């Protein structure tokens, strides 16, 4: 998902790029709890029948589910912020607030590479003088295309 400043300032622009995500951390925890409850019920039932060996397997599985949900939650909260000033284009990590790279606006170039067979997703780079930063790796194809077009307009359209 790409968000952009609502103001119509032609010179300064801010773009925020995020992966699509539908779960907040709170709902993630709820999903995990619901699964844990169901699995716990199953494990408890079979333990009561004498098959206590089901417990370690449900436990291991819950651990894996938790890990998967957590890792993906981290991943889906990443954010790239592109700030376009009169002079420069800078890219920050939106979550850490750290600046990653900055390029002179006049020289900044947008390059989109495509797999000739359309088998792999395209990649989008921004930079100048041979130094490039990849942006929007987590976007889907259409969003990336639109982003590339809009960036080109925004940078050159000053």
């Amino acid at each position, binding site marked *: 998902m*790409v*968000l*952009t400043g*609502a103001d119509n300032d032609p010179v300064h622009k801010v*773009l*925020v790029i995020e*992966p*699509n*995500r*539908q*779960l907040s951390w709170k709902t993630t925890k709820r*999903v995990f709890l619901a*699964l844990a409850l*169901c*699995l716990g019920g*199953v494990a408890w039932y*079979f333990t009561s*029948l*004498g*098959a206590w*060996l*089901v*417990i370690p*397997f449900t436990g*291991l*599985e819950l651990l*894996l*589910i938790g890990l*998967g*949900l957590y890792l*993906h*939650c981290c*991943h889906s909260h990443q954010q790239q*912020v592109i700030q376009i000033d009169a002079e420069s284009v800078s890219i920050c*990590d*939106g979550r850490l*607030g750290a600046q*990653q*790279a900055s390029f002179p606006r006049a020289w900044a170039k947008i*390059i989109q*590479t*495509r*797999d*000739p067979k359309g*088998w*792999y*997703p395209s990649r989008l*780079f921004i*930079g100048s003088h*041979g*130094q*490039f*930063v*990849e942006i929007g790796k987590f976007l*889907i*194809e*259409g*969003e990336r295309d*639109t982003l590339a077009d*809009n960036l080109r307009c925004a940078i050159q359209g000053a």
Partner: protein
Amino acid sequence: MSTTTLSHDEAHHHDAPKGWRRWLFSTNHKDIGTLYLLFALTMLFLGGASAMLIRMELFMPGIQLVDPDLYNNLVTNHALIMIFGAVMPAAAGLANWMIPMMIGAPDMALPRMNNLSFWILPAAATMLILSFVVPFFPGGGTQINTGWTLYPPLSVQVGMSMDFLIFAIHLLGISSVLASINIIVTLLNMRAPGMALMKMPMFCWTWLVTAFLLILVVPVLAGGVTMLLFDRHFGTSFFDAAGGGDPVLFQHLFWFFGHPEVYILLLPSIGVLSHVIPAFSRKPLFGYNSMVGSMLAVATIGMVVWAHHQYTIGMSMGAVTYFMIGTIIISIPVGLMIFNFIATMWRGSMTFETPMLFAIAIVLMFTFGGLSGVMLAVVPADMQYHDSMFVVAHFHYVLMPGAVFGLFAGVFYWLPKWTGHMYDERLGKIFFWTNVIGFNITFFPQHFLGLAGMPRRIIDYNVMFTEFNVISSVGAIIFGLSHLLLLYIVIKTIRGGKKAESRSWEGAKGLEWELDSPPAFHTWTVAPQVK
């Protein structure tokens, strides 16, 4: 993230790995989907070969081809390979290919885990095949003569090949669980903005439910077979009555997994049907909400009726009544699903390409299998049907149309999308007719065999059962050989053919057919929140 140096070349070519590295280290959902599908195709032929051997042996009374233990081992292997090697990976292949495309996600949620969950499969298949091969070598112990249900105490008698099998089942379980976690996270978290759960394509819904079912039941099977391993080697007696254990406990553990497993095999194909039938009827799916609801109902009720596979173990009357009523109740949501499919076809503008032909065959034959399932659910009558050839006929009528034909329909439906080429429609139709007719000749007579008194899993039978076995075996030859045509069609389509358009079918709907023209519900509208 750091800056990279881009040369002129890189700007135009992709830096994806080539050759075997592309496949071994792949984290791309399309590559992994392809791997899953190819693996499933291979296993389909392996499992099919064992089925052919079984039918050859049963062609005539007497023991001609294999010895009894080898026969029982073939029965075991046919089931395990077809379920864990062919149907589940094929469904997972479809999921990998289609889910990200359908919900507008760049890839699966956990690509590296995706890679792992596929590459466990060849290892597991190797273990499975080893369990079959090992007894042929000196010191290899006896063959697995238990059937796929692995009931103790018989499975405790078996030699070391059972240990291989237990290990293989563990691996297969890990693979399924990893794939399920991946699919659940993808579906819950990575849908395109605006795609609410109740707007999700049906195929995604079916896989969401399937993945939940897998997560709930796989640990129980893992626990069960581990207890079997302990009984075999570490002197425990979970299932040994002489040591205070309970042989029936394993059956409960097994069928708690085994019955939902049926729905795990079935649901993805129902999902495929919910795309194929509307596409070729040129009309939206009838009753999306009731489809989702009935699917959830099937999954929920299906979790708690496992013991209808064990009516003959001598449960109390209260218990069997509960399991009987529960099982019969399942016919309500399943009936609603079938009704929705027919109502989708009703007043549509149908054309009959291969996917649609398979879809119609599923509606008809799955109904047939489902109805014989209602007969089997009736406890007193099941006292007769249980473990007879009638059961064999019933579950092949459920699983072949319900699972395998659904996958065939899906493969033919999406093959143009995957390969960029149209398949040969004429060959596809020939394949459909030989396949379906062969299937019916094979399995329809087995109903009569069962009623007349032929138990399942016997290598040799009395002359009174000859006629129908002959018919069944002749059908099996047609049915088995027809799959060579499938192989030919698939390879031919991969190599080339008429160029497929991005919307390959006139009536096809869904994000996956619009990849070149993305939907408009994203970006550039919401105010940003930047520090």
